[in-house]
């Protein structure tokens, strides 16, 4: 990374600007600023979140997790292409496959660790004592998504999410999300919260195969999000559909192509 690139603090202070130069830059920034209207899709998304929050606050709004349908099985003929990837996952060193395009996010194992662990802290650093910032707290409430660099070799810790290696390739980073069939709703909610900590573009099904997919799953929707997990101890992939009317359809697929669970969840 270069000194001027990606915002690294300079090692030595910049030469101060003259007042005129400062004013010039400030004016150019002001001209590039100005009011913006929030896009309609973001308004709709946040309205949905608000509606869900209100439901969450109001008692007696009905079941949060609904069994959608009986188990399905994905045709095995479609599984063969991903066999190498599955093998890679099985030995615990999560698969490394091709590179993402330039605009895609990368995330190293260490970065993922810092992401989850430092999110709240960094917010706190910026907050005055007694700060009421809820964003920091909301991050702290998240489940542990951290992974120690090197722990990607430890298959026992659970599922993973995608990250970029030093060479720009995509690797899997273990997240430790475990689902149990006898407490599915709790696990699914936790998994969805973990998903929300990962840049959306890194979870989309449309790029699933390129990210070193741990298990073959059907591409039910290109905008669906996926998260490697463990289901009753076995490697699996959770696939979350888009939020509709405050609910998210979640399916869990085994690496053998079995649909292990399908639920409708209010996140």
């Amino acid at each position: 990374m270069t000194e001027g690139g990606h915002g690294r603090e300079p090692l030595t202070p910049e030469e101060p600007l003259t007042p005129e130069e400062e004013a010039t830059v400030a004016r150019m920034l002001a001209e590039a600023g100005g009011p913006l209207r929030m896009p309609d899709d973001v308004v709709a998304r946040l309205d949905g979140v608000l509606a869900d929050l209100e439901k969450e606050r109001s008692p007696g709004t009905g079941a949060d997790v609904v069994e959608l349908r009986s188990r399905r099985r994905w045709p095995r003929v479609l599984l063969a292409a991903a066999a190498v990837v599955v093998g890679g996952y099985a030995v615990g060193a999560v698969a490394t496959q091709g590179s993402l395009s330039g605009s895609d996010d990368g995330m190293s194992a260490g970065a993922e660790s810092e992401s989850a662990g430092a999110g709240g802290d960094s917010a706190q650093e910026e907050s005055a004592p007694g700060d009421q910032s809820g964003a920091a707290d909301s991050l702290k409430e998240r489940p542990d998504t951290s992974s120690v660099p090197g722990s990607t070799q430890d298959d026992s810790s659970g599922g993973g999410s995608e990250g970029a290696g030093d060479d720009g390739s995509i690797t899997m980073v273990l997240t430790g999300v475990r689902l149990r069939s006898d407490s599915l709703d709790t696990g699914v909610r936790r998994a969805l919260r973990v998903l929300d900590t990962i840049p959306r573009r890194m979870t989309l099904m449309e790029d699933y195969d390129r990210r070193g997919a741990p298990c073959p799953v059907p591409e039910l929707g290109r905008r669906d999000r996926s998260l490697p997990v463990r289901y009753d101890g076995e490697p699996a992939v959770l696939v979350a559909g888009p939020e509709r009317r405050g609910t998210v359809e979640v399916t869990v697929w085994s690496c053998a192509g079995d649909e292990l669970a399908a639920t409708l969840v209010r996140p």
Partner: protein
Amino acid sequence: MTPGEDPPVDDRDDRALLAAHVSGDPTAFGVLFARHRDRLWAVALRTTGDPEEAADALQEALMAAYRRAESYRGDAAVTTWLHRIVVNAALDRLRRRRTRATEPLPDDLEEHAGRGTLRTGTADTEDPAEAAIRADRRREVLAALRTLSPDQRAALVLVDMEGHSVEEAAEILGVPAGTVKSRCSRGRARLLPLLAGNRDDGRNVPSVGDPSTGGGGQP
């Protein structure tokens, strides 16, 4: 509220809305958020430099503010409190992103921003060619802004782009006013050479220490 609609009219001020929310009013928080959503969106978008990150940060902030509303003590304006939560969420995302492998940021921030309506006073009367030039300049400025550290970027977004006073920005960022001034000053110094040539009067911004100009740019 339906997308595209103006925020609902409510006579209650921000503090009253927040208090009503804490008391169980099911609509109060929505009214409050809708009242400030465009400004919060602008801050999140310009701080993160990425529409998707901005939307994620806003969602995170919305949930945090909704759930932690009772912790608002009234020391600062409600809008300052909201901005603080949004900026913190955006900065957290930026810091997480900085720790990942180097990656280019989207070049189409303005395009994404354009999904919303730019409410400039000249939008209806501006010549299309001039509008295109201005859009190019905006794009260049925003690209330069993305090279700054998150802290410098947030300070400049709040002060120079969103028009907050240094004191307001300090409250939002939870740092002393002097720190905001320093971050703005250092950020502008880093931006100046990047913005050379991006002048609306055809004159280049002089590079810092450029002997040919004496380092004294004209505003």
